[in-house]
């Protein structure tokens, strides 16, 4: 009996040790808002499908403590016990920080080998290839399209219309202000939020081509053609349409004003649906429109690559990380995500026969169908970004004029390599 027991224990031990030796864990940084039940349900399902397709593999989510913008991703990679694959806010400005610090792997070869280049929009692949001399360091997961969110019921009750021109927009702001509501809410303590409104204003005043030129250093940021958007922000603050006190708000504080209908408008992207659900806001009531412009054809959302997959240079499971990205780019997973009620973004390739899960997402997709302008927050060099965000805070708190603020941004741009 004793011999049998000892034999059984030994057999179990060998089995367990064998299983442990074969077990592989893929640590994934993300997803955001995993604490939201709908998001958790979607991602746990994806995780289970991947584990089923790859026996012996476990996927472990690492809830993000921040982004590249606040240094959280860099610190996690630097710790050497960080993630094997990362899903985070991206764009050339952010990616250049981790790329210059040699913290992420080049993925160019994988685009060819694994066919990723055929799984994203051709224009997107061309854009990525042009950023770092042909090397690509990210795999886009979602695109952003930033525009104005408004309350349909509030607008209907007051008889307000979505403005078609900047003049109409100013008239609308005055009417909202007269009603005792905050015309626009903004939370510039969250740098991204500051950039969303400012990018919209730059696009509206100067147009996509001019902002593109400014980002490529073909025109100075303090050129009146580019600075016009900054001057508009200064004037909106001076008129009281954007309260100076908002300089002390973060994204949560500002969106709280909008969700509680104390603010009529808010500049955000498709991801705002997740914030709205979390706040218990009825998404059927949410309307979306691009910031109006007097320049024909320039009333378009701003955006760019919003979220991407990255593979750290010290990933303990680089092969598994590539497999995971393959899996995420596959048709079934992408369609599953696009149709899920937790869907919060525009996907990096055209998905036919997919109905967006909320009406506001449908409006956003329609607005973005004609293309999006630049959100400078994701295109500016890392060394300029900090000044860019601080200048926006300075404009909202009335510490700097539009022209002077743009001079500071231009000075940083001139230094940037």
């Amino acid at each position: 009996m004793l011999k049998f027991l000892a034999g059984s224990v030994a057999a179990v031990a060998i089995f367990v040790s064998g299983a442990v030796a074969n077990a592989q864990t893929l640590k994934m940084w993300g997803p955001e808002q995993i604490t939201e039940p709908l998001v958790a349900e979607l991602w746990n399902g994806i995780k289970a499908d991947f584990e089923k397709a790859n026996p012996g593999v476990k996927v472990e989510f690492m809830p993000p403590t921040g982004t590249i913008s606040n240094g959280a991703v860099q610190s996690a990679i630097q710790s050497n016990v960080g993630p094997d694959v990362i899903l985070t806010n991206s764009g050339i400005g952010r990616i250049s920080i981790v790329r210059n610090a040699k913290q992420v792997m080049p993925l160019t070869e994988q685009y060819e080998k694994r066919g990723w280049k055929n799984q994203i929009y051709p224009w997107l692949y061309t854009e990525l290839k042009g950023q770092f001399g042909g090397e690509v360091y990210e795999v886009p997961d979602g695109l952003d399209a930033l525009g104005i969110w408004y309350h349909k019921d509030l607008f209907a009750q007051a008889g307000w219309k979505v403005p078609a021109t900047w003049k109409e927009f100013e008239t609308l702001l005055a009417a909202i202000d007269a009603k005792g509501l905050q015309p626009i809410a903004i939370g510039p303590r969250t740098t991204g939020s500051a950039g969303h409104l400012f990018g919209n204003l730059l696009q509206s005043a100067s147009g996509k081509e001019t902002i593109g030129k400014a980002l490529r250093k073909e025109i100075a940021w303090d050129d009146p053609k580019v600075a016009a958007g900054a001057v508009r922000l200064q004037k909106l603050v001076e008129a009281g349409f954007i309260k100076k006190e908002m300089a002390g708000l973060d994204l949560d504080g500002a969106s709280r004003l909008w969700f509680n209908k104390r603010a009529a408008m808010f500049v955000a992207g498709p991801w705002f649906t997740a914030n709205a659900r979390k706040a218990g806001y009825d998404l059927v009531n949410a309307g979306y429109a691009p910031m109006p412009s007097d320049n024909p054809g320039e009333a378009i959302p701003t955006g760019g690559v919003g979220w991407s997959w990255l593979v750290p240079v010290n990933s303990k499971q680089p092969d598994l990380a590539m497999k995971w990205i393959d899996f995420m780019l596959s048709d079934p997973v992408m369609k599953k995500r696009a149709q899920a009620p937790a869907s919060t973004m525009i996907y990096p390739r055209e998905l036919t026969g997919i109905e967006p899960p909320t009406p506001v997402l449908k409006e956003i997709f329609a607005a973005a169908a004609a293309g999006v302008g630049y959100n400078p927050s994701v295109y500016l060099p890392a060394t300029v970004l900090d000044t860019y965000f601080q200048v926006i805070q300075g404009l909202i708190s009335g510490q700097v004029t539009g022209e002077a603020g743009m001079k500071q941004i231009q000075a940083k741009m001139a230094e940037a390599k």
Partner: protein
Amino acid sequence: MINRETPGSSTVAPLGNRSAIAKTATVEAGGSVARRFDSHDTGSALWLMAPALVLYAIFSLLPIAATFWLSFNSSAGFNTASSFVGLDNYAATAADPIVWQSLWHTLLWLIYHVVLAGGLGLALALAISRLKVTQVFFRTAFFLPHLVSLAVVGVIWANIYDPFYGLLNTALTELGLGAFTQGWLSDPALVLFSVNVASSWQGFGLYMLLFIAGLQNIDHSLYDAAEVDGASAWQKLVYVTLPGLREVTTFVVSLAMINGLKGFATVFVMTNGGPFYQSELITTYIYRLAFQSQDHGRAAVLCILLSLLAIAITLVFNRWRARLSK
């Protein structure tokens, strides 16, 4: 000189006799015993200290040396090849107006912290030290904020300061004092002070406990004598209590200055140095340079600057204290 007993000896010499025996032994051996003991002890001491010395070298000396090395190099991150740039990082730091602005803010922050946290700690210690039954309750209640993480304190106070929903502005409005509502975190003139209030709220509890301990050590007969001389409460405070707290006050001020220089978490959480750098401290700027811009060279220069600042402030304060006590 260590006085060793012979192994197995059952008798213990009286203290006075022990030194006499040791002295005799040293003289008899012509000093060779003492020398043997000294070299043996030094060797043992070094072996015993080795683990601590190794840890100190790894976790203190090496990082300090690495910081100096980084300050003369340019690199975009720890994984990149760095290049020697001489004093370029120092020149760039000196030419950066935000550095000087953050240095000024750091000094203001330190003063606010010493005055607000130290002052509140002293005031509350004086207020509750005479309480008999309820002192423990108040002591515990006032100390509780100190147990809360600074990051959590930042989140709580950011909500208190919210200009639209915050407790502070709402209370002022409800009390008919709407004219006093402010953008506590958006007004450039107020933001550093507002954030410091949050930080000091978390810190005053420790200083209060130290002051209470100091108050308990003041000889009560001094108060009795002052009473007999007809001293008022104010005179007793000025001529008995505060002089009696001199040592504790010195300690509290030193501690508050060190904590003030380390200020980071509340600023990082509540304003991230904004708006438009109006609450930027040296520490937050170091973080911004090192982890957001990956400019480790300039961040290292600022680390050295911060260390020099701490050393200079400590030296000046100690000299001032020494002069006062003469």
